[in-house]
């Protein structure tokens, strides 16, 4: 078995892993190892051939592969990163020993000084939403179908019903329409969409694809291949309302019903997960509950924009390099951040205060439901230590807030983030 050592091992070569590896090098890690299970770097970006990436990070509108190649060029420029493709991490121990498998190198054991988790996320499946009926061919998760259309050059179907209005589902509605397929409906069980507003406009409205809010799929028909789908309107408790059945003839169902951070390796290593995000509990430096393990990107929380993934991974890469160089000071104080009323989750979940360091902290917040004209507050022991007005919030669009150092530095114990309707 091949054995080697490195300062920082990065698991995953998507946008998170690429940015983390570059950042680790820039902050003095001598040897960085980047492990990617696919045959090329870039992760899911490679199948996202539409545009809309990079407006924040590169001040330019790029396609997914375009964004990936920018990130890969940065990696080349940084130098000193060993990239292993076609390589799967199959074991990870709390003392930072990674076991990998690949056709080229066989079994390999890596002793790292610090580890960045950048494994991304996976799609929720049909099983998670329990649809009665037959089990024919023609049912795909939207991302799997996207890979087949954009990377392999095959169509999953010609008459499509999309279940769920997540961003991948919306993007695929447009993509399939452009390929000559007919998208009959997008069904969303909630009374609001789970996608970005720009995707609703550019992918559905611009192509006259009907979106059915408060509708759920109740049956799939078809012996060998899907022949039709039945949906029903739901009440406020998300229960189907009898008499509202609508049937769409179709040969394909695409599921866009959510993403799950891929944390099986993290869990096996004993890293604590946040049940609200599905990702590790981290501090603002993206360090997890196990020292020397850092997490960034969709493995930590499902992001809407890759630009934020890269920004978050810059932080994780830097922290990992400092840890490997034994330059990370011990925290003086730890505060816990918690989701208060109107908030689904907050990342980071912990803030550590280190002696002589006072810096603003960027918080990623998901609200629980859509609202207009709200007040976002950060509360400590009943006192408001930070406040901001927001004209509109939606669960599908992450709220990003720069919390000034003064708002948390002197505080102790628990900080609660709440979003409530502002007084008129």
């Amino acid at each position, binding site marked *: 078995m091949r054995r080697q050592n490195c300062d920082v091992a990065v698991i995953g070569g998507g946008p998170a892993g690429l940015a983390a590896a570059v950042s680790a090098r820039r902050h003095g890690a001598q040897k960085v190892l980047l492990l990617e299970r696919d045959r090329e770097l870039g992760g899911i970006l490679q199948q996202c051939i539409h545009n809309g990436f990079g407006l924040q990070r590169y001040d330019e509108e790029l396609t997914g592969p375009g964004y990936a190649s920018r990130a890969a060029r940065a990696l080349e420029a940084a130098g000193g990163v060993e990239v292993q493709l076609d390589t*799967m991490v199959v074991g990870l121990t709390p003392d930072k020993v990674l076991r990998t498998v690949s056709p080229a190198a066989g*079994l390999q054991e890596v002793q790292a000084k610090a580890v960045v988790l950048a494994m991304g996320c996976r799609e929720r499946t049909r099983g998670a939403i329990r649809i009665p009926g037959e089990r024919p061919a023609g049912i795909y998760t939207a991302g799997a179908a996207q890979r087949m259309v954009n990377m392999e050059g095959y169509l999953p179907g010609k008459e499509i019903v999309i279940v769920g209005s997540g961003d991948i589902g919306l993007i695929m509605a447009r993509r399939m329409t452009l390929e000559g397929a007919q998208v009959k409906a997008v069904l969303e069980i909630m009374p609001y969409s789970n996608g970005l507003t720009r995707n609703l406009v550019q992918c559905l409205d611009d192509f006259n694809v009907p979106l059915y809010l408060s509708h759920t799929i109740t049956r799939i028909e078809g012996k060998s291949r899907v022949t039709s789908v039945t949906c029903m309107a739901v009440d406020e408790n998300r229960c189907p309302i009898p008499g509202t059945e609508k049937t769409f003839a179709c040969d394909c169902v695409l599921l866009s019903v959510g993403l799950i951070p891929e944390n099986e390796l993290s869990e096996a290593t004993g890293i604590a997960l946040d049940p609200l995000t599905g990702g590790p509990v981290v501090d603002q430096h993206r360090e997890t509950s196990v020292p020397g393990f850092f997490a960034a990107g969709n493995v930590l929380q499902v992001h809407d924009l890759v630009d934020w993934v890269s920004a978050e991974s810059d932080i994780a890469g830097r922290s990992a390099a400092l840890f490997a160089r034994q330059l990370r000071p011990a925290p003086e104080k730890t505060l816990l951040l918690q989701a208060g009323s109107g908030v689904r989750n907050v990342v980071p979940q912990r803030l550590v205060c280190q002696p002589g360091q006072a810096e603003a902290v960027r918080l990623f917040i998901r609200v629980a439901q859509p609202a207009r004209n709200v007040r976002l507050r950060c509360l400590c022991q009943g006192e408001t230590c930070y406040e901001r007005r927001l004209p509109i919030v939606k669960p599908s669009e992450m709220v990003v807030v720069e919390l000034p150092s003064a708002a948390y530095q002197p505080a102790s114990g628990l900080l609660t983030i709440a979003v409530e309707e502002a007084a008129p």
Partner: protein
Amino acid sequence: MEGNKKSKVVIIGGGIVGCAIAWELAKYQLDVTLVEKQPDLAMETTKANSAILHAGFAARPGTLKARYNVRGLALYRQWEAALGLEIEYVGSLVVARQAAEKEKLAELLAWGEANGVPDLELLDREAVLALEPALSPEIAGALWAPGAAVIWPFGAALAFAENAVANGARVMTDCEVRSIAIAAGRVAGVETSRGFLPADVVVNAAGVWADDISRMAGDDSFTITPRKGEYVLFDRAASGKVRHIIFPIPTAVSKGILISTTVHGNMFIGPNAQPAAGKDDTATTEAGMAEVIAGAQKLMPDLPLGKAIVEFAGLRAGSDRGDFIIGNSAAVDGLVQAAGIESPGLTAAPAIAERIGELLCERWPNLKKRADHIPDNPKTVRFSKLSAAEQAALIEQNPLYGRVICRCELITEGEIIAAINRPCGARTVDGVKRRAGTGLGRCQGGFCGPRVVLILARELGVPVTAIVKDAAGSSLFMDKLPGHCEVLKP
């Protein structure tokens, strides 16, 4: 028929019974062909059932069900190592929910003793709850049968078929029987979608279709009326709640909605018993799911419903005779029936096969066993189960064992190619799933499914668009229009 020329036997149906018969007959100096209309073996009743090897107390003494159940279980024990079957002897409990039901337990115990089932024991409430703490505390007692087991039915059917092929039998999939040729009052052959197959004997193991096949030969002495059973399968994370097979008191029509574990460690509940809308009606229904859940909750109130991963339904191939129909057709010479196979058919399969072998020996007294019979199946490589040293050596030998395709279950490209290339190899995505285990994990094939399609197309030398999920016609991907250009479209 004797002499140098081997007698020709065509077995219709590639379920557990047909495959076991092929395995048994391949021990003899016979020309054996098994035909299956689906693209793969074991795609109907064998694919969707309770996957239990029954101890043998639930069938009325004197019936064929009772006789072949007990003998079948013994044959599985005898052959499991040679064939490489996946069986766990977990034992079963028939649970009485009230004191009044305990009489029925005594009756089952008596049946079991009459059938020759060893080690049966009546347990009181405390003893049952010690075995299965998650059961309802209100139960009154149970009949304990330590010999009952759970099995991987697809794996068993495939193992039988692979061994048959290793011993010279032919297995033809995508081969639908269109008619049975009769000459001078006896069977002469079978007309199929893949051509005419001459036959001296035709064995009817066609499951829910067995009455149709029998009628093709001119024997309309029985009718198969399929009854549907629906199931809910749970994530392995919810396993451990159940360690044994747990039956309620049986009803007149079925063994009732049970709770059990699969050999792969998934808990499941079911089946109900509902009339099927047709011989291919395996759709699940809301009402059926509610019935299965309510039934299982009577035994175990605290079911982990949030951990359900898949719902499915299967058909029982029960006949109007009420017992298995095994033997020479009274109407047509050369037609041998292995029909009306409902529970405990999976358990009984090798015993039914043994009986068919005896019938052919009676027909052809000079029939001999093969001297060169190969009893053992080659071992299947499971990369994730190997030691690090074994894994390293395997990748050295074949680097494709170093490429993980199914990341949830850690299954490599080498294993997928082996599943495609071995005898009775996989031709479909679900065929790869059943042989190699791809797509059984938490992502349910979302990641590996398209990759398996591409590997299948490459290994079989066919276009990607020709690869199907499972049944004939279940195609997965279509070509983009040739020359189609979205920008220049008028």
